[in-house]
Every structure is written in C-alpha cells, then in structure tokens.
C-alpha cells in the first residue's frame, strides 16, 4: 500500500475509538488486559482479551472489535508476528461476528420451509378452496362474473345471438338440464357469436356458449351435455375454488422463491404443475356432473366426449400431459362412451327446435 507511513514512525497498531474517525497510532502491551497506548504513553483503552472479536479486513490485516467497547471501535494490526501473538491470547476471537452464520442450518431450514409450503400448496389449498368457495356471497361471484364477461366480450366479440325461436329452444334445453342437475334459477346460458368452439362458466352462474360449438354439434344431447358440464362447474363453485386455489398457490410459491411478482421460470413451472393438476380434477368432476345429469334425463352421456373429440382430435403424446389444464380428450371420450346406453327418456328437443337453436345467430 502506498500510504504506509515511513518505517521510523511506524506504529505497532492503529486504533479507531468508534466515536471519531481519528486514526490513533498505538503500541500494545500485553498484561492482564490489552493496553492501547498512544505515542505519548497515554492509555487510550484497556481491553479484556476475551472481549475481542475478529472483524472483516483485507488479507494481511488483523482487525479486531470489542464487544464491551463502542460497536465501531477497531484495532488494526498489520504486523504478522504481533497479530499471531494477539490471536493466541484471544479466546473468543471467532465466537460471534458476521462470518459465524451456520450454512448447514440455513440449508436445513430452507429445505424444511420449502417442503412445508409445497405440501400446503398440493394438499392444503384444495381443502381450503373446497370449504371456502361455497361460503362466498353470490353477489361477490356475480360481480366477478360481470368483469370476466366484459373481458371475454372485449376479446372475442360481443354479439349476443337472440333469434326468438332459437332462444325458445335454448330455454327449453337449459331448463331440462337445470332441473335435472338440481340447480336454482340463477343460472343462465347466453350464446355469443364467435368462431371459437368453446363454452365457459362465469362466476355467478352465467354460461357463455360460443356459436361455433353449436355449428359443430350433431344433436341436442351433445349441447345438453356441454351445458351440463358447465353447470357442473357452477354447482361446484369451481370459479371461486380455482380463484382461491390458484391465487394462494401463486402467492405461496412466489413467497417461497422470494419473487412476489411471480416471474421467473422456476416459479412459473411449479405454479403450472400445481394449478393444472387442480384444474384437471375440477374438469373431471364437471364431467361426472354432466354424466349424471344426462343419465337422469334418460339420454346417453357420450355426446360431450364425442363433440370434444371431434374438436380437438387425439391429444395424448403430443403435448405435456402433466401441465395440461384438462384431462386428455380421448380419456374423457372413452369414459363417457363406456357409459353409453339406449335412451330411455324423450328427446330433449324436437327436430324443428334443434334447427332453430342451430340458427340462433342468424340475424332476423
């Protein structure tokens, strides 16, 4: 270092008293205690050896603090011989201080915390969502539903199909499914004009049916099964459950990885794995609801599976099964096909009503 003082006045050690930045050159005398004396022979401090702790310093310098002195008081020794002499006398040099964290302990508790959080996310959150979702007031759900509906309409077009004859046929179909499913009359189905074959259940009980799905359907049973599936989501409060579950899962995992904004590939991957498994379960349960409703109506439950398969084709092996939000279409179709039965109930719509429903989007 270029700033070292000339050797003839070189002090044995440098002392900062922690109350001012003044650099004291001191000599050390070892007795019962360590005496720090300035060049005039004045004693500046008297330190007990057991109180001395090592502080951070560049290599080659021994820097000491004293637990009984002002916290920033420092003694710096640059002479290796003197440093060794002093080190031998100090018993608690490395007892506490910044370097004393136990890496093993940090690792242990981090892994424990991670395991605990992941277990909660996988097993605890579904239970919480299950219990909590039905307790939310319907007005809150409906309010959310309005928001989602607006977003869907902004993205996909907002033309509601309302041909009167089609409406009448739809109302008849919906009423049949509703009463068979045991739902009260806050549920409703609206057909939106859209080229995307899909249907969504909104929070609050409204179901949006996109017209392309009507165009692809072969008979009223298929549409009834789709509506029943969506009503299954409504009956199970799935929107609220998914909201609670996925929201908390994202939050917990974000918390775990220290990234509250939820970015980062790791957070994303974990979140996707956990939320998609939950969503697949919800879809499976909605299928069950649809099957039961169709059986109660005396119609075959296989329509939903057939319609879906027509839309998506075979899915297995082409995408990552474990991150898919829905069960594989062929699995759903096979399940419903296995329950196929000869209809025992009357057709849900007459041929004329079915034609009217398919034409619900035509402008009068």
């Amino acid at each position, binding site marked *: *270092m*270029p*700033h*070292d003082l000339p050797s003839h006045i070189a002090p044995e050690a*440098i002392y*900062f*008293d*922690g*109350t*001012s*930045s*003044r*650099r004291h050159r001191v000599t050390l005398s070892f007795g019962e205690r360590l005496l720090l004396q300035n060049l005039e022979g004045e004693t500046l401090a008297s330190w007990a050896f057991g109180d001395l702790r090592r*502080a*951070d*310093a*560049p*290599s080659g*310098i021994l*820097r000491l603090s004293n637990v009984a002195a*002002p916290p*920033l*008081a*420092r003694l*710096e020794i640059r002479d290796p011989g003197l440093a060794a002499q002093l080190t031998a006398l100090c018993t608690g040099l490395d007892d506490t201080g*910044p370097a004393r*964290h136990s*890496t093993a302990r*940090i*690792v242990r*508790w*981090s*892994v424990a*915390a*991670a395991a605990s959080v992941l277990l909660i996310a996988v097993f605890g959150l579904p239970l919480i969502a299950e219990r909590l979702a039905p307790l939310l007031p319907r007005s809150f759900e409906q*309010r*959310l539903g*309005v*928001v989602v509906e*607006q*977003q869907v309409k*902004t993205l996909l077009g907002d033309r509601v199909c309302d041909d009167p004859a089609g409406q009448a046929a739809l109302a008849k179909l919906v009423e049949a499914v509703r009463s068979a499913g045991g739902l009260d009359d806050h549920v409703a189905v609206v057909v939106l004009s859209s080229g995307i074959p899909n249907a969504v259940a909104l929070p609050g009980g409204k179901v949006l049916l996109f017209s392309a799905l009507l165009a692809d359907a072969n008979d009223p049973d298929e549409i009834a099964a789709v509506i029943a599936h969506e009503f299954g989501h409504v009956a199970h409060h799935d929107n609220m459950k998914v909201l609670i579950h996925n*929201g908390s899962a994202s*939050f917990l995992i974000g*918390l*775990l*990885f*220290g*990234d*509250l*904004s939820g*970015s980062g*590939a*790791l957070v994303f*991957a974990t979140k996707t794995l956990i939320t998609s498994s939950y969503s697949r379960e919800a879809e499976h349960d909605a299928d069950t609801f649809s099957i039961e409703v169709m059986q109660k109506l005396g119609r075959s439950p296989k329509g939903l599976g057939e319609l879906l398969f027509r839309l998506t084709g075979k899915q297995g*092996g*082409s*995408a*990552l*099964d474990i991150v898919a939000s829905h069960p594989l279409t062929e699995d759903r179709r096979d399940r419903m096909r296995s329950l196929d039965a000869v209809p025992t109930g009357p057709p849900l719509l007459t041929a004329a009503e079915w034609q009217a429903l398919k034409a619900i989007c035509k402008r009068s």
Partner: protein
Amino acid sequence: MNEMSSVPQVPMVRSGSFCGSRAEFRRLVLRGGLLELITLGFYRFWLATDMRRHLWANTTLDGDAAEYTGTGKELLLGFLMAVAILAPLYIGYFLLGIEAESLQTFASVPLVALFYLFSQFAIYRARRYRLTRTVWRGVRFWMTGSGWAYALRASLWALAVLLTFGLLLPWRTAALERYKMNHSHYGELQGRFEGRGLELFKRGWWIWALTLAFLIVPSLLWLPYLTIVVLPALPVLFALYRAMEWRWWLSGLRFGAVRLQSALPATALIPLYLKAIGWSALLLMGFSLYLGLGGVVITLLTGGEGELFRPEALQNNIAMLVLTGIGYLLLIVGFNAVMRIYLLRDLWAKVVNTTTVYGLDAAAEVAAQGELATALGEGFADGLDVAGF
C-alpha cells in the same frame, strides 16, 4: 495524519485501491450460487452479505479499508417485513382491479404505476441500508430523507424521461442523486452532489442519439437485417455510457470538504461487458450441447429407434424433463456467477482503482453520528425484483 493537518496549503490527495483476490471472490459466488440453488433461493441474503463484505473490506481509502457490518439475518428480516406489507397490498391490488374493471374493461392496467412507486421507494431505502452498514475508520455513513418523497420524485422524473424518449435521463439522474446525497452523511460530515445533468448530457448525448437511431431507423426503413448488424453495438454503447456515468457520479460526490475524482477511462467497462456476454453465450452453448447429449443418451437407453428421436417425443419424456430442469438451474447459477464476477467485482475494482480523494484532511477527525436503518428497502427490492446502487 494530524501532524499533516497543520499544513493545509497542500490539499491531501489520496487514491482508492481494491486489493481483493479474484479467486477468492469466484469461490465465494460459485459456492453461494450452488447454496442458493439448494436452499431454493433463501441463501441469497447471506450471499449478498458475503459479497458486500468482501468488496467493502478490500476497498482501501488512504490506507484504511472500509467495512460492511450488515448481516444476512437483517436482510431476511427486511424481506419478511416487505412480505408483511406487500401481501395485503397484492390482495388490495387484486380487489381494486376488480372494481376498476367493472367500471371500464382493462381499466386496472394503470395500477401497475403503484408498483413502480414502490420499487423506487425500495431503491432509496436499500441504499440507505447499505450506507448505514458502511464503516470507515470506525465511523459509519448514514442517511435521512423520506423514501416516499424520493419515490414520488423518481416517478415524476421517469414520466418526463419517457415522454422525451430518454432525453431527460441525465437530469433525472442528477436530480435524484442530489436528493440522495443531500440526505447522506459520514459521521458529522454532510454529503451533497455537485454533478450537473447538463454535464452528463454534453458528454453522452451522442450515445443516446445513436441508440435511438439504431432502434428506430431499421424499423422505419423496414430493414430488419440492419438491426442484426447494429445489435452487437448496443452493449458497447451501454458500457461507454456506464463508464461515463460512473466517472460523472463519483466526481460529483462531496462529504464536507472531501471530494472524489474519477479517472475511469471511457472504454474501461467495454471488456467487462463483452466478457460477460461471451461467457453467457458459452454457457448457453454448453447447455444446448448438454441437452443434445442427454437426448441421445435417453434415446439409446430406452432403446428407441428413429421413431423416438424426434423433439416431440423427447418433450414428453420425464427423464428428459428432469435433465432439462437440472441443466436450466445450473445455467442460472452460471449466469449469476458471470454477472457477479465481471459486472460486480471486476467493475468495482476498476472503479475503485481509478478514484482519487481530495481534501481528506477534513475527514481526519469526524465525530460519529447517525442511526442504523432497517433492511425494509432491501426486502422490497428483493420482492419487486429491482436493483439500485
């Protein structure tokens, strides 16, 4: 030192020097990166602390090394405090979003501005934490001022910078630094900042103009190839700007009569950025090679013929997914180590070694003052993923 204060006609000139061992720092960040991986990131508080301790302790000014007295535990605590505050805020943000959306679709988007405000608060308070843990000659630095007042200023300035396509950036930097330094102290010495926005602008305006031209001209002329040609120039421009900014910033710092002067050459940081980019590219190549080899090995082990050796088939293979996941995590550890070695340690060393201090006799006997600040800001910075210095 005190003998010398009796001859004040010659102001004392002292240089800074960084004497840390590069190998030691490399070991520190590699080990720390792996521990971060094992602890799912929790080790980051201790790693950040260890890196700062290394950098501070090896930074010598006028023969005396600085010291960092912060601890990993404090950072963890700051993170927990930030979670306690941010958690209800996220919920409130969510609910407010619903309310705003029901009035007007997608009206909640401007709420993001709130998080910008928070991140600026974080930057201020994180600096305050670091400064109050910085000790030199047994006296600590400290900082007052309001994080929210700063956040408001920073956000308004950011808006102005955005509206002028970056033209006002030097003035923003100067104004914010003035606020920070006016509230900074070393013991009883009051800090201030004398760097002028105009000064930085005069030196760096051509970088701004070139960057803007590089970004706009290719898209205006509809020449996407041109973008590819000028892309390598961007890190060089950035390194030039950073060196310029460091030099301007250090030369503007004052503590009482003590002032700094930086002689950082304009091109000093270019090799660091290029090396960091080069190493990152190398790591990426290694990663692709690893994935390719992994794919071949798995295909051979599962005894698949040509049929299996398609990307789609491997995509759905659990073993391949696990291999990719592990490789990805190691890649991140590698990236972090490269950034920390070149853009933190090496950059720090270059900056410190080219810095000279004038008027240190004014700091020969400074009385200690000031309170420690909490690590709340560090926690916010961690939670919101922002960095500041």
